């Protein structure tokens, strides 16, 4: 079974973001970029499936600018066999990415597609579900466990209030939650080897997909800052403040 895994280049999760002075967007100049953490978990899961002998080939795919090839090389270093880069400098939103991935699914015919549940920049949490709808495949979102069993896959999902397990026919789309696995780090020899693994470059036009979206970003602002309050000296003072000042007791 072939596994397709989608990755996205985003701002590194440790970077404190700044809004541009003209409020047009978040400032990404000279900011450290990395693979989206949920995508790292997706790559890890795909590689583990290969190590278990369930997957025969792992193909990594991304949609983004030329620099996004760094993230594909990371996926290759982590164990993906080859990569597809769909290059665009446009702001590709979930729907456009899902349409492009649907074309790749059509071409590659994977048994399983694994994506992160959301990217930590736009926080949309849409692409996997949209891909499932467009390819008419079942979905197991927010996965904390993925168990391939013959013609089916059981996916345990993190839902509000607990866990839900669903059985899906294959091929299927899975999106990862944080607790699915702990991604490994790439080793230096693997990073060197990754440079020689095949990486195809395509464009949205090759797939006949229009990237432009009907949603426009009008403005980006910093959220209202919350000011720290006072320190109280004792439990009695705390209860007094909550009763008489904040009036929440």
């Amino acid at each position, binding site marked *: 079974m072939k596994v397709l895994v989608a990755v996205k280049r985003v*701002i590194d999760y440790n970077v404190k973001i700044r809004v541009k002075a003209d409020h047009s967007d978040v400032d990404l100049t000279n900011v450290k970029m990395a693979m989206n953490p949920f995508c790292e978990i997706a790559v890890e899961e795909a590689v583990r499936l290969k190590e278990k002998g369930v997957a025969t080939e792992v193909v990594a795919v991304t949609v983004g600018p030329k620099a996004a090839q760094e993230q594909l090389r990371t996926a290759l270093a982590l164990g993906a066999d080859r990569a597809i880069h769909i290059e665009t400098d446009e702001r590709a939103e*979930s729907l456009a990415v899902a349409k492009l991935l649907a074309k790749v699914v059509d071409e590659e015919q994977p048994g399983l597609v694994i994506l992160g549940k959301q990217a930590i920049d736009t926080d949309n949490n849409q692409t996997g579900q949209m891909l499932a709808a467009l390819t008419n495949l*079942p979905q197991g979102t927010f996965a904390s466990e993925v168990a391939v069993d013959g013609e089916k896959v059981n996916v345990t999902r993190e839902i509000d209030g607990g866990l839900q397990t669903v*059985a899906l026919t294959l091929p299927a789309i899975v999106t990862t939650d944080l607790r699915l696995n702990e991604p490994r780090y790439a080793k230096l020899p693997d990073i060197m080897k990754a440079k020689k693994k095949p990486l195809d470059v395509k464009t949205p036009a090759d797939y006949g997909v229009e990237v432009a979206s009907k949603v426009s970003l009008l403005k*980006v602002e910093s959220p209202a800052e919350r000011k720290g309050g006072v320190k*109280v000296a004792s439990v009695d003072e705390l209860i007094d403040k*909550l009763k008489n000042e904040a009036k929440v*007791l």
Partner: protein
Amino acid sequence: MSILVLADLHEGQLAGATAHVVAAAQAIGGDIDILIAGEGVQAAADAAAKLDGVNKVRVADNAVYAHQLAEPMGALLVELSDGYSHVLASASTTGKNVLPRLAALKDVSQLSDVLGVESADTFLRPIYAGNAIATVKSDDALKVITIRTTGFDAVGESGSATIEAVDFVAENSQSSFVKEELAQSDRPELGGAKVVISGGRGMGNGENFKLLDGIADKLGAAIGASRAAVDAGFVPNDMQVGQTGKIVAPDLYIAVGISGAIQHLAGMKDSKVIVAINKDDEAPIFQVADYGLVGDLFEILPELESKL
């Protein structure tokens, strides 16, 4: 304009989130219908009909919609969405699971986690874990939106909408429900509680979370946890408050032994009053707390419980 709201269900009953989503629909303006989909959901439909500002409750009551699996739910929404200008759901794990399918099948974008309405086509939503707020305008014919419920006060329950059955039955041979393990608790649900008390890594172990029980009982509070406490295995992940857990905005939030990582703050900083109890007086949580108490939580918690 007319708006379809997909209701959230909790064990077959109408979940509190829906009253907040109806409030968001009122902010957009237009006729508001609610869709209840599930199996054996008459009680939920009756409850939804009482929500203020609702025109009609549409009920799809069939075994295929039990557990609200994404595939049949997406097909149902596609079938019913004609004629509506907006389809809304809460940004619950159900709303997030189902709505993008509708959007993709209608070839429109989806707006996630909307927390403010500027007009019928312009909305506010958090990006970068709430560290920036984007104003976005949608020119799509159908607007598909998930609502962050903490952004909208719930509507009242003095309405009397009409209830009508939906005949459409989706086919589903692709996915099936296996099991669900839901946390059982007599306490209020985290997302809707007026008071939340959360423990962090400072609690030391899962056993010590019992120190929060007595206080939660006295305050009618829900109990939450930081990601550090969940990752350390103290408590299950459905208790997690934060960017990757529940987003809460209660009247009173009490953070105990929580340092205040950005990922936790993203989940609770819109609370009306924040109290922090921590032994480290430099902990970042104090920068957002209205009232901070520096000290040993193992002494403070029993004292607080006895004096409340």
